């Protein structure tokens, strides 16, 4: 064990994920937070600290978004921190919550993630372009999809992967999401549907991509002492890892996410995991694009480099397979309100390990699960390992 105290998750909450929700960002934060507190049987006054994760201010269109959302996240007159590591934020937020409690400073922490991307209209794409270098990259007319297209193409080229090998991920995840009550894009589709969808930036097609969404998610974290008092069914945070690679993303070979491997190794070391594919019962790797699920499975050392498409084709990653991947439906199916989407994955592992995932429940008796998010300019990995 790392840290002074072992940390448990005792409650989780989630709002609907939709392209547009009427609720303000504050209201979404509140709904998710309140649901998580209710699930834990706790009150706001029981929370000694609050950590909020949310992506660029440019989506909500409110600067100092952390401060703006604070009251909805339950931070009124409490020690409060906003964290932001791009798309990696959703999984990094509970990691930040973890160290609040693991350090011994607090016995409880409310962890909240929110995104309201519909404020930026007609489409948040344009806000995304401002993440690029303003001098060397933006003058070329960059679109965010380009970096994914370039990375996906390199990955396909390196291992000789075909588009249909990748499309299966989208088919699986959108299908899984049919069983998720919060899902935005659950659907029964075929590989052909993906291959026939609009070409956005080759090799990226419409159905390879997750949507933009509004939504909120939350977790209640407590120390071991508190957990023992309030629940028979805690889920422990046993592994935490995070890592960033160079910002000069064109200076790397994009076929493999080294930074994800680095974050995974850190989390596995803490959790005492020696053989990840054998010891991990299910995983929720970050899947804003279908190839990203495969890319991240490899970075997480859940299979060899270039082997993830084969496992997917063989059905290993289905809910009833040997290594269920994204049983929630992932970002491709449930939706992608950036920070909230990452935290949704942690909520899913929490519910799966407690046997509360309903129609999505994977068979067997899962004891160890992993969630991972990715972000920034092809450079950030955050990994959490949960155990029952």
């Amino acid at each position, binding site marked *: 064990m790392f840290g002074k105290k072992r940390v448990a998750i005792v409650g989780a909450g989630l709002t609907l994920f939709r392209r547009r929700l009427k609720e303000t960002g504050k209201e979404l934060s509140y709904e998710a937070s309140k*649901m998580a507190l209710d699930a834990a049987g706790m009150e706001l006054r029981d929370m000694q600290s609050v950590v909020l994760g949310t992506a660029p201010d440019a989506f909500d269109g409110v600067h100092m978004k952390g401060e703006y959302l604070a009251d909805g996240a339950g931070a009124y007159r409490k020690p409060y921190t906003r964290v932001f590591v791009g798309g990696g934020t959703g999984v990094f937020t509970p990691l930040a919550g973890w160290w609040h409690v693991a350090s011994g400073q607090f016995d409880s922490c409310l962890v909240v993630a929110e995104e309201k991307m519909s404020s930026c209209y007609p489409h948040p794409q344009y806000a995304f372009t401002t993440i690029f270098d303003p*001098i060397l990259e933006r003058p070329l007319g960059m679109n965010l999809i380009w970096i994914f297209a370039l990375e996906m193409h390199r990955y396909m080229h390196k291992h000789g992967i075909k588009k249909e090998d990748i499309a299966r991920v989208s088919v699986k995840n959108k299908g899984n999401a049919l069983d998720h009550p919060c899902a935005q894009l659950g659907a029964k589709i075929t590989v052909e549907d993906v291959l026939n969808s609009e070409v956005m930036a080759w090799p990226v097609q419409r159905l390879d991509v997750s949507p933009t969404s509004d939504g909120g998610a939350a977790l209640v974290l407590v120390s071991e002492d508190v957990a023992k008092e309030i629940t028979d069914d805690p889920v422990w945070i046993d592994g935490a890892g995070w890592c960033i690679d160079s910002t000069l993303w*064109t200076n790397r070979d*994009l076929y493999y996410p080294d930074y994800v491997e680095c974050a995974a190794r850190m989390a596995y070391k803490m959790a005492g995991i020696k053989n990840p594919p054998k010891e991990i019962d299910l995983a929720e790797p970050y899947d804003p694009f279908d190839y990203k699920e495969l890319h991240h499975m490899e970075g997480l050392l859940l299979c060899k480099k270039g082997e993830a498409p084969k496992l997917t084709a063989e059905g290993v990653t289905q809910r009833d397979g040997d290594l269920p991947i994204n049983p929630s439906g992932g970002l491709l199916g449930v939706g992608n309100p950036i920070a909230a989407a990452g935290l949704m994955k942690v909520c899913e592992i929490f519910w799966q390990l407690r046997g509360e995932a*309903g129609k999505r429940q994977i068979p067997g008796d899962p004891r160890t699960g992993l969630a991972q998010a990715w972000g920034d300019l092809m450079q950030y990995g955050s990994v959490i390992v949960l155990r029952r």
Partner: protein
Amino acid sequence: MSEKIKDYRGEALKSADFKEGRVPTEKCRPKAKFAWSAGIAIGRFLEELKKGKIIASTCSKCGRIMVPPRIYCENCFKPTDGWKYVKDTGTINTYSVSYLAADASRLKEPILVAIIDLDGASKNMGLIHKLGEVDKDEIKFGMKVKAVWKPKEERVGAITDIKYFKPIKEATP
């Protein structure tokens, strides 16, 4: 969602709800304008582009020749200590055929975009740029390409002083 939770919060809206004014909203267009300082390394880089040259910075400790140039080596965390011209030729590391403009609007004629590993720079020192004078179906990984520069009088010290990279036709014997 936990099967224990029965009520999922959130009131979904359609884009027509906005367009037809069924939902009251506030609109805003921020007016901020920026003048980004080019800095030391990129300032020099842009100056050289204006002259039709591509310059790298070098680190004597790890020996890397780095493009785009920087004043510090992020690996060794020491100042770079030299400048070196690299060639305006290179190979395609990866590429995409984009039907999306920056604002996500759709294009009839795609933009061809590639990461190009420049000759004379260290491994994987790619530059992102456009490709031209090539059909989208002819582009290949590992293809040799060369910069097509704007005429000297039109160059202003910008990444767009290079119009695009075009394939180098193999000389026929």
